[in-house]
């Protein structure tokens, strides 16, 4: 682990290129990594495959990437709060894979945990099962859901030490700790950056070994 992983937003966004698969943390705009997203919008990086819980609202966080047509494929559980997502999907401009929220979380976790997949009852008998393997375990049917990984994960952290240890506050945790485990490069946008040792080891929710770079969200 590098001892100080803090870089500028520009350095971070220089790593993001057209066509990449990117995970972005947050839930309905609640603490998306907005500085990083704004810089992505400014850079105009395009043809992204985006993995996120939702597409927020048109003018907030992730929503801007959709409105600005930078996303080619979206994997999410909910798009209802951003009409533009539905419009682009219906117009055939945006490919959308809708995934049940619990399955999305578990697929990302599997990607981070080196699992080949998980068996879930969610989606059995619905359109979600289309094209998927059904496996019967002890008399009950489950869908085999495959792991998800990304080239880059952009997450947020409430308190982040310079080695990348993260503490999330309140409802900002959501998908962030999962995405931190499931990408080749993990960049955290920190509300507050502190020295190594300032976070109690019991309070660390994402150990620094998962984090490659830190940018200040201030």
């Amino acid at each position, binding site marked *: 682990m590098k001892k100080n992983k803090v870089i500028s937003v520009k350095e971070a966004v220089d790593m993001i290129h057209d066509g990449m698969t990117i995970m972005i943390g947050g839930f309905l705009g*609640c603490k998306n990594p907005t500085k990083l997203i704004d810089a992505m919008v400014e850079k105009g990086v395009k043809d992204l495959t985006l993995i996120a819980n939702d597409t927020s609202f048109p003018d907030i966080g992730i929503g801007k990437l959709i409105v600005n047509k930078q996303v080619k494929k979206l994997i999410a559980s909910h798009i209802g709060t951003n009409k533009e997502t539905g419009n682009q999907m219906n117009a055939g401009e945006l490919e959308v894979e809708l995934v049940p929220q619990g*399955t999305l979380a578990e697929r990302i976790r599997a990607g981070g945990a080196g699992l080949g997949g998980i068996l879930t009852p969610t989606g*059995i008998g*619905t359109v979600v099962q289309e094209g998927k393997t059904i496996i019967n375990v002890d008399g009950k049917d489950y869908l085999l859901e495959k792991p998800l990984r990304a080239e880059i994960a952009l997450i947020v952290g409430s308190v982040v030490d310079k080695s990348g240890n993260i503490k999330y506050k309140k409802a900002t945790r959501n998908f962030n700790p999962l995405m931190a485990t499931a990408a080749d490069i993990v960049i955290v946008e920190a509300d507050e950056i502190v020295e190594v040792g300032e976070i109690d080891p019991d309070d660390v929710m994402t150990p620094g070994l998962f984090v490659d770079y830190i940018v200040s969200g201030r």
Partner: protein
Amino acid sequence: MEKNMDKEFIAKRVAKELKDGDVVNLGIGLPTLVANYIPEGVEITLHSENGFVGIGPAPKEGEEDPYLVNAGGQYVTIKPGGAFFDSAFSFLIVRGGHVDVTVLGALEVDEEGNLANWMVPGKMVPGMGGAMDLVTGAKKVIVAMNHTAKGAPKILKKCRLPLTAVKCVNLIITEMGVIEVTDKGLVLKEIAPGLTVEDVQNATEAQLIISDDLKVMEV
């Protein structure tokens, strides 16, 4: 009854289903109102699928916390004894059967307890969010909705819209009555004051079985 009065009536009746100590997830819209009518002496724990249990009342104006929203993105509070967690753990709670009751709306429900509430092909495709996991995992699934939509029945012989899950609904509560999903079909257990069984059946595509012990809905 007017729409808003209907909603209040339905929410009040749903609230009576909740038992002291229940862990409950309330869907967006009408189901959220249920929290306002929890009976005296009953303490429930509300689960918010974005990552906590112990949803408290809305914050006072000016006291909104950007770190603390519910699964609908609205500012909320957390009660003492609440707990935050990540999305995988949130759905471990849901899928693992640790939610006692989930209350949610429906576009269609049918005789087998199949539920459709997440999309209308070509029109509305908001995504299933946490709904598929909730109705698959919760111990008891209560559909709380208006009995009909623009006069058309929503309780059908067989759902026509894409399903949220198969055979998942336990109880349907509308402004017209309370219907239990059983192996034999839909059993009308309670009927709203002033209505006849025929009124309810006429507003219902599925064949209703009338309970021997049919009661008047009280809220």
